[in-house]
């Protein structure tokens, strides 16, 4: 806690915004050093004052509410996931007869193996990773180069491009569904259909206005003196991009990256439309079709395996994800 002597923690953590960039490097390091400390500093003042908290009646009620809240959150938030984990290694008959009991007839660990090898969930698993990695690369390329050009190189037509990008935020994604599908069927410049290729998912993922706005706002907030000094020293735009803008944008790159990967993992309708061949479908598209075809216990094991990576990513990058989620609200607003 002592590391926060100057910057109030709430403020420091909020600072994913560009204006704070000069401090961002330091803040990130400090956050990392804090390790297992709670998400928000507990010394900050909220609705209730310390005086009120110390009152006996309040203290008791507050304790009861907190305990109840924890139970509700455990049941609602963790409960279904625990149930899935349990049922993944329970024989079908036990899950059907007594779904709320833990292993009445022993465990069936081989469900996981069957799902992975016999049902070939491994293929879909790798496809999902492939979809996520490719989408991430395209999004990174578009957002970093575009954000850099719009925020730092600032051509005369930057305003027009910016307006066009923000304009797409106002169009609900459903409007794009059919015309984008036809574009993938018959894309310009390429000449042959992209259906059943990963490009059909990768390329449209790059057209994320949210990413570009985040990137260009962040880069626009970087101290311009640094870029001017580098220009005076003879650095060209590529040097500015690679050696200054990119390294200084690490905090926002992290946020954008994690959300890109998680979004690729979540996507359903679009890959369903353009990846018709089961051999290249990601998990989300394949799982609903498995339901009828395989044993219930193996099916639940497949669901559990599909949840593993997103939950692991969340546990590892919890702080970054939760900060980014709050940030998402701010940008949308």
């Amino acid at each position, binding site marked *: 806690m002592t590391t926060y002597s100057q910057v109030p923690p*709430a403020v420091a953590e909020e600072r994913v915004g560009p204006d704070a960039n000069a401090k961002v490097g330091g803040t990130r390091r400090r956050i990392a050093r804090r390790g297992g*400390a709670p*998400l928000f500093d*507990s010394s900050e*003042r*909220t*609705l*209730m*004052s310390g005086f009120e908290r110390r009152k006996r009646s309040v203290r008791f009620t507050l304790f009861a509410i*907190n305990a109840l*809240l*924890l139970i509700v959150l455990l049941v*609602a*938030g963790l409960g*279904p*996931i625990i149930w*899935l984990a349990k049922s993944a290694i329970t024989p079908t008959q036990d899950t059907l007869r007594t*779904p709320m009991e833990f292993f009445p007839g022993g465990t069936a660990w081989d469900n996981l193996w069957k799902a992975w090898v016999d049902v070939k969930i491994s293929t879909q698993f790798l496809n999902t990773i492939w979809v996520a990695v490719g989408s991430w690369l395209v999004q990174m390329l*578009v957002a970093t180069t*575009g954000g850099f*050009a*719009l925020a730092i*190189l600032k051509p005369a037509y930057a305003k027009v491009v910016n307006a*066009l990008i923000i304009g797409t935020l*106002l169009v*609900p*994604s*459903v*409007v*794009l*569904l*059919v*015309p984008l*599908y*036809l*574009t993938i069927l018959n894309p310009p410049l390429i000449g042959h259909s992209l259906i059943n290729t990963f490009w059909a998912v990768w*390329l449209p993922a*790059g057209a994320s*206005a949210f990413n570009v706005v985040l990137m260009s706002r962040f880069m626009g907030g970087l101290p311009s003196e640094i870029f001017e000094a580098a220009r005076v020293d003879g650095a*060209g*735009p*590529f040097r500015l991009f690679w050696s200054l803008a990119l390294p200084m944008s690490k905090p926002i790159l992290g946020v954008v990256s994690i959300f890109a990967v998680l979004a690729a*993992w*979540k996507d*359903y*309708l679009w890959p369903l439309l353009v990846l018709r061949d089961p051999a290249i479908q990601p998990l989300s*598209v394949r*799982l*609903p079709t498995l339901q009828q075809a395989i044993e219930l216990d193996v099916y*639940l094991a497949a*669901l559990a395996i*599909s*949840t593993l990576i*997103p*939950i692991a*990513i*969340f546990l590892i990058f919890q702080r970054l994800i*939760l900060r980014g*989620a709050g940030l998402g*609200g701010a940008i949308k607003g």
Partner: protein
Amino acid sequence: MSSTTSRQRVTVVTRLTRWITGGGLSTLTFLLPLLLIFGIFSWWPILRAGVMSFQETNLVTSQWVGFDNFVKVFHDPSFFIAVKNTAYFALLALVFGYPVPLIGAVLISEVRRLKGLYTALAYLPVVVPPVVAVLLWKFFYSGSATGVFNTVLGWVGIGPQPWIQDAHMAMPSLVLAATWGAAGGTVIIYLAALTSVPPELYDAAEVDGAGIWRKLWNVTMPQLRGVLFITLILQIIGTAQVFLEPFLFTGGGPANATLTILLLIYRYAFQNSLGGDYGAATALSLMLAAFLAILSLVYFQATKRWSTS
């Protein structure tokens, strides 16, 4: 006079070289990925949606048909069912889903020990891939006496429910599952907003003798008003486009009880054995987009008047 002569001297070629040496070309190179990707996969499809809604299109030819697609959609008996169901879904999602994250966030922000654990637990359902969540809940909703939810209901003496197999219970069941998957994201937004309420306001209210409830109503809520307005309209826009839950839970059934607008668009375009009716699909999606745009405009006008008064 000198300006005219200089203007004559600046030919296209010299202007181009000047633009290149001035960095114009490298700037454009940096913008190229963005322009290509947005151009092909965002701007062009949006324009094309506008054109296609007035055309009868199959994959080979397209023909101009005026407002026929819109008329056709209006005359489809499924259209009003879908509109009604989508509105019902949005309404239920507001009733169930809107207060829950707010109450959750206010309570979590008062937690002092293990706050990170509370926050993480609230956000955990958001991390579960939506398809997995829906398939899991579909199993929970099993109508048999030994279904997961029916077993739990049995503990408190309630008989087995049909859940998604019943036309009346199907939609609330879908909303419950959707709320489970979405509430955590809103909790995080509110938590961030709660930390930015200036502490001096609470101090000042206490000096005036305000208790916990007074502070909640007179300080916290007014400070959250802006965020609350925005999450409300964002939730309406989101639920108006609900697809995954009705598609995977019920496929629109039973008896079209969960047929939503997006499901209808999907049916028009991709579930027709005779080839997609792309014109009707884009016409319906544009109608939905126009409705949402008008709704947002009216909404922001209305809330602007409220917040200034």
